[in-house]
């Protein structure tokens, strides 16, 4: 599939591929409902959404999606355990006030969590900071430092460490290039961390028993 390199949500198809057909999905920060709609059409999922903006919620409701106005920081705590097969947080983790709590809640509510985020370890970002001495501004992270909703940026390495701390297991991980295609080389983490503009992870609650 050809993708628009200027589309900041290149990760949607990659995420959709991780979801088992017919499952129950909660999309946290679902925006205008593009992913939920994609999942409903291609995977026949029973989808629910949480979205902060009134216009986003209205767009979702008009599409027939079940979406609640709220956010990952305040509203996930109210969801019962095991209500969903997948809880998805796409391109939102870095904008939450307490990413750790958000992840913990996701793994409580869903059997799986799918998280995508812009990788702050990408070489272009590192270069901007190192050479220019300025806070990086890229296609994925288009706001200047004083104007950005992204208050908790992390690198792929940082994220993997947090997943470890939470006792979760990474069932699948992919670094995406600027066109949204997974980097298909069997590379060590530091390569992914350098080359991936975005990352997508499928997490499970516990590491499988050996």
């Amino acid at each position, binding site marked *: 599939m050809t993708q628009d390199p200027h589309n900041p949500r290149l990760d949607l198809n990659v995420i959709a591929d991780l979801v088992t057909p017919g499952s129950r999905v909660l999309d946290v920060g679902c925006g205008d409902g593009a992913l939920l709609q994609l999942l409903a059409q291609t995977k026949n999922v029973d989808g*629910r959404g949480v979205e902060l903006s*009134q216009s986003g*919620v*209205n767009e979702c*409701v008009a599409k027939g999606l*079940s*979406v*609640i*106005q709220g956010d990952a920081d305040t509203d996930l705590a109210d969801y019962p355990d095991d*209500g969903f097969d997948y809880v998805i947080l796409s391109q939102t983790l870095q904008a939450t006030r307490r990413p750790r709590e958000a992840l913990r809640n996701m793994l409580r509510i869903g059997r799986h969590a799918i998280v995508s985020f812009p990788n702050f370890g990408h070489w272009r970002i590192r270069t901007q900071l190192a050479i220019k001495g300025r806070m990086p501004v890229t296609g994925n992270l288009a706001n200047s430092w004083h104007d950005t909703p992204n208050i908790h940026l992390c690198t792929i390495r940082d994220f993997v460490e947090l997943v470890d701390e939470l006792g979760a297991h990474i069932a699948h991980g992919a670094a995406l290039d600027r066109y949204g295609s997974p980097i298909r080389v069997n590379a060590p983490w530091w390569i992914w961390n350098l080359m991936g503009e975005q990352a997508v992870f499928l997490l499970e609650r516990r590491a499988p028993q050996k």
Partner: protein
Amino acid sequence: MTNFSHAQQEQSGSVGKTVTFSSDQGLLTDGGGAIAPLTLAYETYGQLNQNKSNAILLCHALTGDQYAAGVHPVTGKTGWWDAMVGPGKPFDTDRYFIICSNVVGGCMGSTGPASINPRSNKPYGLDFPVVTIRDMVRAQLMLIDYLGIDTLFCVAGGSMGGMQVLQWAASYPQRVFSAMPIATAAKHSAQNIAFHEVGRQAVMADPDWRSGRYLEQGVRPEKGLAVARMSAHITYLSEAALQRKFGRKLQDRSAPTFSFDADFQIENYLRYQGLAFVERFDANSYLFVTRACDYFDLAADYGGVLARAFKETKTRFCVVGFDSDWLYPTSDSRSIVHALNAGGASVSFVEIESDKGHDAFLLHEPMFNATTRGFLESAAAARGLRDNRK
């Protein structure tokens, strides 16, 4: 469905359509009373389609009535939801069949405390059984059965009407395809009960109330009821809206009069609201409908767990709250949403930004309009309703 062979269709001018259920088909109330015969006054808009799948029941708020849209035959003003109901509006009468009935205990044609008690041949007054939100919904169900409608496409309403929506969804989930509880709560708060009690005490303190027997004595507790309305009206507005509309502006004068005249515009406004209200509303009816709200606590019927009220429901919900509503704050809406989520229901929730307070649901709010339209259209697609407007 119950067969109402004895139900009588009537057409009496001032209250539009009515149906009367005879003595043996009356309403047994939660409080152990019986209301028989039972008359329900209702209004309909639009056309019921052939397989009766496009019916929407609108539930009116505390002092509303069956005249949701168009010109009200008694007051001459537009109906309470004229902003939302009509051709091309979100509750599109070109597409849906809209039903709205006056609640039992009301005073616009449905049996209430001003109706004649068949036992005494005098107005019921306080002998009218205290009714609950569930009693109101039971009466509405009788009407829906009488109209031959199996499943309502949508039940919608705000405030006390929203309580009825929640009760419908909990009591008769298989008969409610979609539900819109708006600016409402699953239980009446202590603060809400307190405001209602102030209103009731104002009515009862009026010497013309006569222990509720004023109709026989040819008087009406207008002062008390007006005060009740004035205090209630404040709760329907927000501080921001009051400030924007009135501030400290004086009424037709340039300086305070150092008297107790209505110097301030807000005073004049509230006095007008009080006077206009007593012309159309029965004081005892006000006591009964406020009481019905006070007794509402949906979770209490389900072991204190609201989620159980909606267990395994197939109904599609759209819960709406307004951020400046302090009478039914959006935290109340969120409690409903959490319960629906816990029950696995299909639920959307929108918190509409508005500075108009609780009354916002009655006014033209573009985002609320868009939410309602979108929700109904997607539900209509899911219900397989043909769009006959093209």
